[in-house]
């Protein structure tokens, strides 16, 4: 009996050793490739390093003060929030409408799902160039040629300070509405049929069921999509680099998002300290949003 216990505990110990052995390389990976760089970015944001000089001068919060007085920083931050505020709600609402209707369709829901989803998994660089071409002036751009053939006037689209940001948003919404749709569909499918049956007995119509059952019960899904969507739109970059002239976020910075400004500061001007300070700001914004989400989810439960 005694022997059995000791052999069992040595068996458990060997299992523990295996577990630690399995985790050695991954834990090192996460420390070296994820956590150390995170702290290093914080550190760099307190220096004036330009990658060429050997020394990294510690300059305290000077980068952050400079940031505060930098009109381009505020402009790009403002643009970023415009992308979130104008783009995300449209994408969410369209995603919900599509999901709601696909769920109600008797036949062909598989095909509809695929059609609406496929832009989401296609290369955004490729899609950006396709849309950039569609938006060109005549005789190149398809949209303008269609406008002309309908007897309407040409639009500047990407070359206009007022239209460019929205033109990029149309592409963005088109490419990510499929993601919202798939998550909404999963949420809708997760609602128990009993609720609807009970409501039908009470004589509820489609509209009542939508407003009193579907939408309230989708609250966790909506919160999830709102948070992940906000983060995704805050990090918008690829479309703007590929759709604007020379990737500059023009005309006149009117479409430039924060991440593009970070990218230019770090990799065109090699102002590593300043760029790092901006990534820290982005990180803090994302962290606050995530913490709010966790808080809201917790109070829901």
């Amino acid at each position, binding site marked *: 009996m005694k022997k059995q216990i000791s052999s069992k505990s040595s068996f458990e110990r060997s299992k523990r050793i295996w577990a630690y052995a399995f985790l050695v390389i991954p834990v090192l990976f996460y420390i070296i490739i994820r956590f150390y760089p995170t702290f290093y970015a914080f550190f760099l944001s307190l220096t004036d390093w330009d990658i060429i000089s050997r020394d990294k001068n510690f300059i305290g919060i000077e980068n952050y003060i400079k940031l505060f007085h930098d009109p381009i920083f505020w402009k790009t931050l403002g643009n970023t929030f415009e992308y979130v505020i104008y783009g995300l709600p449209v994408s969410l609402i369209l995603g919900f409408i599509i999901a709601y209707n696909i769920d109600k369709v008797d036949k062909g829901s598989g095909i509809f799902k695929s059609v609406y989803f496929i832009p989401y998994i296609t290369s955004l660089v*490729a899609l950006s160039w396709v849309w950039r071409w569609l938006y060109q002036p005549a005789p190149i751009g398809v949209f303008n040629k269609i406008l002309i053939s309908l007897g309407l006037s040409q639009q500047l689209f990407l070359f206009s300070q007022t239209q460019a940001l929205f033109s990029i948003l149309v592409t963005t919404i088109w490419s990510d509405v499929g993601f919202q749709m798939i998550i909404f569909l999963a949420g809708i499918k997760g609602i128990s049929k009993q609720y609807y049956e009970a409501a039908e007995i009470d004589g509820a119509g489609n509209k009542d069921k939508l407003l009193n059952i579907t939408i309230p019960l989708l609250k966790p899904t909506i919160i999830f999509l709102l948070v992940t969507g906000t983060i995704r739109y805050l990090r918008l970059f690829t479309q703007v680099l590929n759709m604007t002239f020379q990737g500059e976020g023009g005309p006149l910075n009117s479409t430039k998002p924060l991440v593009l400004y970070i990218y230019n500061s770090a990799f065109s001007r090699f102002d590593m300290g300043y760029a790092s300070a901006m990534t820290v700001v982005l990180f803090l914004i994302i962290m606050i949003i995530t913490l709010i989400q966790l808080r809201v989810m917790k109070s829901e439960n």
Partner: protein
Amino acid sequence: MKTKQTLLQAVRVFLLTLFGVLMLFPFIWMIATSFKQGADVFNLSLLPSNPTVKNYINLFSSSNFPWWFMNSFIVGGCVTLSVLFFDSLVGFTLSKYQFKGKKIIFILILSTMMIPTEMLVIPWFIMSNNLNWVDSYWGVMFPGLMSGFGVFLMRQFFTTVPDDLLDAGRIDGLNEFKIWYMIAMPLVIPALSALAILAFIGNWNAFLWPLIVSNKVRMYTLPVGLAFFNGEFQTQWEMVMTGASVASIPVFLLFILFQKQIINGIALTGVKG
């Protein structure tokens, strides 16, 4: 009542089809234009008047496109294998063993999903510069070799594997590594295939980091190559559309073959919230 329902169905199908065609509009134009040449490119008619595959031949014979295509395949393939191996091993360990520090390791790995890549690319670039990883496959690949999302996904699936099966293996004298890959892994193949496809597509489309770490044109991945493509071909839009088609087609094929796994895998990201 019945007719009202069928009418509603018809309206739904009609509207979904209409908007579906609009969704596909850019793809249709992209592919149609890739088969056009000369003045035909500027025609508003969708179908090419004399369809030609010359753009495709041109793309693969007189540009760096074949390199980019190959680089993307190598990088995507290697990263996917690494993610499959490590994420499932970590997920397995975190769901099937009891040891000190388990919870904190899981939380730390999950928390890495919160760190924006934009914050990491500057330190990664400095690291790559110091270690001579710029313009190498390893340089493009190293940040993606493991993922918090994969660990989370695999851990969820391994908890459904009954412990009795693993214990049976132990009685047969298998060591823990063999128990993982001979007993547990075959039971989670659906999750593995979903993870593999999502990892491959994610890497195939990745842009920011490959853009930063590649300077030599021949080391570009497809998206980076496409971004600078316009300069190479002086706004020959039919060539840009051909390049965009070639970049999209592998994803279309994967999607047609593994539609279920892809959609379910994406849906899983939203289940937990």
